[in-house]
């Protein structure tokens, strides 16, 4: 049957082969290749492959670092590489973020190696899903287009829902996954509606073009001095969608439950990589997509930042479980990272640089803390804070590492966290407005509150007696040890040589911002 008679089709449509910069796309392609290889190896060799899948995933991530380094090396000559009319951009920001995602993914795989092999888990599928989630993050770091951001967001979220429920026999893990899933799909629906409004109001999906049309009236071409209701609604919906992902208050309810129900390496993955991906999307949207609408996003970010810091810290004070403590501390830290966005319209470069440094340091110290929790749980089998009591008496190395991470999280010089916190504080105060000063005061007050609960963990480790006087040392497998060493070194280097971070975060990070 000839359908063309029934429904005439225009034959003028011509397909133009898109120009692809293969060098710029190679990190994604390598990661994709290793993901496919992992699946194939699992299918062909079945159980014999199990012991190699973790190594394969780790090697895949390390190989992916190679093109990222060569791209970074070329960056000074070529400048940002732009593909698909600005929908996919490789600039300094995206390369730094890709490196953070891949390295933290690597540390998570080191953490998982023994945990997954010794527990009752499906192994190769675990690493396959982990790689696809990391692929989603790597894609996210370059996506400068509403549809790409949405798809990358789903690619990193949907495997995470499944990983959170990977402890199949535990009802707690299943419920953690379901709760995370329901919150996640709700958030993505809200975000999508916001994106459709943005598309409708601007007529574009590419962020730079969205920004250009948000700053002027579509009818008259005059620049808009204040937002219209529909733009306000669109920006709020999109930001609220991502606020769920970064577990900013008041959208943080899923985080403590999901974190304590999921397997510990997955918790580390969710708390670090997945959360940073949410911030990357927010940064791209704010700095590229609707930078012109500072009158909308700044107050919203202010509220989210203040609420997250206060609620996160106050609830963290009452926690008795170390994973839940880390979850609420994560909420509070989300507030810290959102704070510069509340002044981004005025001090953009500084705000962006402070966020990027904080994210790098955040990854190192949080992954480290989860590594110690994981190591301690190998002996005690529990994640209550009491189980950390007297850690020093039987595992001095772990005790020192945990102290470093806790003090880094609290922001005590010369450990990593202080530099990140100061940069954020100065970026906020630099703006100088009343609201910015109030936010600065909140930042300072909350740093002090946070110091209390971090320090109390450290005190238990050093001063208290081990439960039941059991002093058998903890056997730390090599991969877990490597993860601990990597994170300790990173935390110390970021603290003693803050230049190591700020060197990368100077100016002109994000193309089109």
């Amino acid at each position, binding site marked *: 049957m000839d359908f063309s008679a029934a429904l005439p089709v225009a034959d003028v449509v011509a397909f133009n082969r898109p120009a692809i910069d293969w060098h710029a796309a190679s990190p994604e392609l390598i990661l994709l290749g290793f993901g496919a290889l992992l699946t194939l190896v699992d299918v062909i060799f079945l159980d014999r492959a199990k012991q190699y899948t973790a190594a394969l995933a780790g090697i895949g991530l390390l190989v992916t670092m190679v093109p990222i380094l060569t791209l970074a090396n070329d960056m000074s000559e070529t400048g940002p590489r732009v593909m698909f009319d600005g929908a996919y951009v490789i600039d300094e920001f995206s390369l730094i973020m890709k490196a953070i995602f891949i390295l933290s993914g690597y540390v998570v795989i080191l953490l998982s190696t023994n945990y997954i092999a010794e527990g009752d888990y499906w192994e190769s599928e675990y690493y396959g899903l982990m790689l696809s989630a990391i692929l989603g993050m790597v894609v996210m770091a370059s996506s400068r287009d*509403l*549809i790409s951001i*949405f*798809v990358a967001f*789903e690619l990193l979220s*949907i495997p995470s*829902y*499944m990983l959170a*429920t990977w402890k*199949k*026999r535990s*009802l*707690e893990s*299943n*419920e*953690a*996954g*379901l*709760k995370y*899933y*329901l919150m996640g*799909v*709700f958030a*993505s*629906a*809200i975000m*999508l*509606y916001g*994106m*459709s*409004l943005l*598309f*409708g109001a601007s*007529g574009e*999906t590419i962020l730079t073009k969205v920004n250009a049309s948000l700053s002027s009236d579509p009818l008259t071409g005059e620049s808009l001095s204040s937002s219209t209701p529909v733009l306000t609604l669109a920006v709020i919906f999109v930001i609220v969608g991502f606020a769920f992902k970064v577990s900013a208050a008041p959208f943080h*309810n899923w985080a403590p*439950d999901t974190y*304590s*129900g999921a397997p510990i390496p997955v918790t580390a993955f969710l708390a670090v990589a997945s959360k940073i991906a949410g911030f990357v999307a927010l940064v791209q949207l704010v700095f590229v997509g609707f930078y012109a609408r500072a009158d909308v996003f700044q107050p919203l970010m202010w509220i989210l930042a203040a609420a997250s810091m206060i609620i996160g810290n106050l609830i963290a004070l009452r926690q008795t479980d170390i994973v839940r403590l880390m979850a609420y501390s994560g909420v509070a830290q989300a507030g810290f990272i959102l704070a510069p966005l509340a002044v981004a319209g005025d001090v953009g470069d500084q705000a962006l640089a402070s966020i990027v440094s904080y994210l790098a340091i955040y990854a190192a110290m949080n992954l480290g803390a989860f590594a110690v929790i994981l190591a301690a749980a190998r002996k005690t089998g529990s994640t209550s804070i009491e189980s950390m009591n007297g850690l020093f008496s039987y595992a001095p190395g772990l005790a020192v590492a945990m102290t470093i991470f806790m003090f880094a999280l609290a922001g005590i010089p010369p450990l990593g966290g202080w530099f990140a916190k100061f940069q954020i504080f100065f970026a906020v105060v630099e703006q100088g407005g009343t609201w910015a000063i109030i936010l600065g005061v909140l930042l300072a007050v909350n740093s002090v509150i946070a110091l209390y609960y971090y320090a109390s963990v450290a005190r238990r480790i050093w001063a208290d007696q081990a439960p039941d006087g059991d002093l058998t040392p903890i056997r730390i497998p090599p991969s877990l040890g490597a993860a601990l060493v990597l994170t300790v070194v990173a935390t110390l280097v970021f603290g003693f040589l803050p230049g190591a971070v700020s060197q990368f975060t100077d100016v002109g990070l994000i193309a089109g911002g």
Partner: protein
Amino acid sequence: MEITSNWYLILSALLFSIGAIGLLIRRNPLVMFMCVELMLNAVNLSFVAFGDRLGDIAGQVSVFFVLVVAAAEVVVGLALVVAISRRRATTTADDLSVLRG
């Protein structure tokens, strides 16, 4: 009175609100999935309506992506519900009681 694209947008807003509230008041995970589908359909409708009024094909392209993602979401959601129902007698979101709120 002609049906302008504004009416489609308002229909979409209505469906979105119904879905959002359903998600908040219902406690059966499967019904909650359906409410998410309602919301995503509202999004699709508004993408197509905007695409139509703007003369931009990106509206319909978005529908394609939303549709695929929705399918993946439902698959994962059902797998989670089946896994939980194997382990307990009733599955309602209020009964997610092993974890404190």
